[in-house]
């Protein structure tokens, strides 16, 4: 039996933040060094970051600044070279591949720039995929996947194949897939990067709505217009957090607020 993250967190002696709520995501001096043909490349050079529940964080920075690496660490697709990453209180370095998969399955949802739908599966089958790995029974899987597709406005496209859908529609299917398992955290890597502005704003509208429904969102973008949808923008440079800006929490003022709330870290 795979232990749940609750089991894991109680086992975890080094429990982060003794007081108050455990943050959803916590990084402590996390580094990630790649070995590229014998040359060490430091993608992340010691990141300290806490993302509380229901936060909406945008990560910005030039390419090579470590945005994707950071997202991979949070998404348990990768583990830090040193330092620690805690997801729901569990130190990912101490989890087996199997337990990491379990964590991804239960707590995390991914949205990628290039959608990453399975080409040989219908929209519905794509959305059902995470539930497959959670051992949800077929009838419930179908109901939940249909609900998720309806939520992204594609209820009528359930039987379409990915190549029959537009880019924006594909990304909405991907979002439905990411949230169908009711994750705590939604990780989006340039979700609007391959979309026209209309489809892009539809996708962002979806993310905003999910945020108000209580999902924690971590979003990578290099578009400040996209980043303004968040409450907090983390600027990365050379694998470090260069600065962090907090945006007004009032959704109505977002987008207009621009960089006014910015302050140097």
């Amino acid at each position: 039996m795979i232990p749940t993250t609750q089991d894991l967190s109680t086992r975890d002696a080094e429990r982060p933040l003794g007081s108050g709520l455990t943050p959803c995501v916590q990084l402590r001096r996390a580094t990630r060094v790649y070995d590229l043909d014998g040359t060490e490349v430091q993608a992340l050079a010691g990141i300290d970051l806490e993302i509380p529940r229901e936060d909406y964080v945008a990560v910005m920075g030039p390419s090579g600044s470590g945005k994707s690496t950071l997202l991979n660490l949070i998404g348990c697709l990768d583990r830090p070279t040193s330092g620690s990453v805690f997801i729901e209180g569990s130190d990912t370095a101490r989890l087996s591949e199997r337990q990491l998969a379990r964590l991804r399955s239960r707590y995390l949802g991914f949205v990628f720039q290039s959608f990453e739908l399975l080409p040989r599966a219908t929209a519905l089958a794509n959305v059902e995929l995470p539930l497959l790995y959670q051992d949800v029974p077929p009838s419930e899987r179908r109901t939940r996947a249909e609900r998720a597709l309806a939520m992204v406005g594609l209820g009528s496209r359930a039987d379409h194949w990915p190549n029959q859908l537009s880019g924006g529609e594909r990304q909405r299917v991907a979002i439905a897939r990411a949230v169908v398992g009711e994750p705590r955290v939604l990780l989006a890597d340039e979700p609007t990067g391959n979309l026209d502005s209309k489809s892009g704003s539809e996708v962002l509208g979806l993310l905003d709505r999910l945020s108000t429904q209580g999902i924690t969102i971590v979003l990578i973008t290099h578009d400040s217009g996209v980043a303004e949808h968040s409450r907090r923008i983390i600027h990365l440079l050379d694998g470090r957090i260069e600065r962090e800006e907090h945006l007004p929490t009032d959704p109505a003022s977002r987008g207009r607020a621009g960089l006014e709330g910015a302050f140097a870290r």
Partner: protein
Amino acid sequence: MRASETFRASVSALGANKLRVLLTTVGVVSGSFLIFVLLSVGSGTARQGTNLIRNLAPNAVVVVHGYFPSEADAGSISFSPSEMLQQMETGGQGLPLFGSSLEPEMAYQIQKKLPEGCYACPLSVDIKTVEFGGASRNVFQFATNENYPRVRGQEMLAGRYFNRSDRGRSVCVLGSYLKERVFGDVDPVGREVRVDGRRFKVTGVLEPKGMTFVVNNDDFLLVPYWVGGHLGGGKTDGFLVSTPSRDAMRRVKSICEKEMRALVGDESYTIVSEDELLALAGQATRMLEIMSAIITAVALVVGGVSIMNIMLVAVRERYREIGIRKAVGAGPAEILAQFLVEAVLMGLAGGIAGIALGYVFIKAVELLFDYPAYVSAWSVCVAFGFSLAVGGFFGAWPALKAARLDPVESLGHQV
């Protein structure tokens, strides 16, 4: 992930590459075909061989002149043509065809020593031409005595068997098939046939015994040993003794050994019992099976390697799919299972196809060549099991590779 879902995902992946799957499974198909056919033909042959031995006489003990190789000295026997020729010329030990020192009358000496229910007859084989009217046929002629029907447990279809009152006369008994071929509807009893030109009076026809393997048990001629004129002159090739039980058979064997030593003196004959002959045949069958196993192992390894090759290609092609599945929560075991099931399914499909083709092949051979193959559950299981195992064995490494893929790397992989 549930097993049924793993299965469905694998089937769908295979379905997307039908031609490739077809080509890949050819190796396993031929392997499973070979296993199935060789085992079926092998066990068919073995069964028929066993039947041939069993058909000699009930719980038979055979005395045959010449030195008959036993298991123990199988290694020291030479099969070189020149040595065989030499043995033929010198009438030496080693070939039970020529130079017998056994007298047909010895059968009566043996018979006297046998317990109740046991019968002995001499048996000497030759090939003769039987003629009647316009018909003629080349057949085996057995020279024996009046005990023959009791030894073989065979009744008469018509007329009577020759007996001691026929002593000195040229009489013969026909197998039922020979009678049909030479006499047709004519009743042969009391009529004369020519055997190699010599006149023989037919006293009767034996009841049919049917075919054993490729041997027709009813296509021969029986003559009393006293008519002579067969290969080996007045000698006989050996004696056939029937016994009522396996216990009696072993007892009779030692009786024969003792009696023959007293009668002949030297060791120019061999005595074997049915169970020893069966053991020898079993050994030959096992050799055949080992050879088949080696041949088919090669075919299956080739099939397995092609499965492995295509699965490695499949893993490479589906890096992104693997990455996606891992990102949405698939663990290593689930990825492993998916690819392993694909490989096993290919093995399985190949196995089933091979067995099906093999079955058709065997049925065709049976029909065309009258060769009795024996399709046993065992050969089906072995062919099926091996195909399955090959899929699993050669699919394991690619599946393990897929399971161990780094999700970040596989998602970043450009197809």
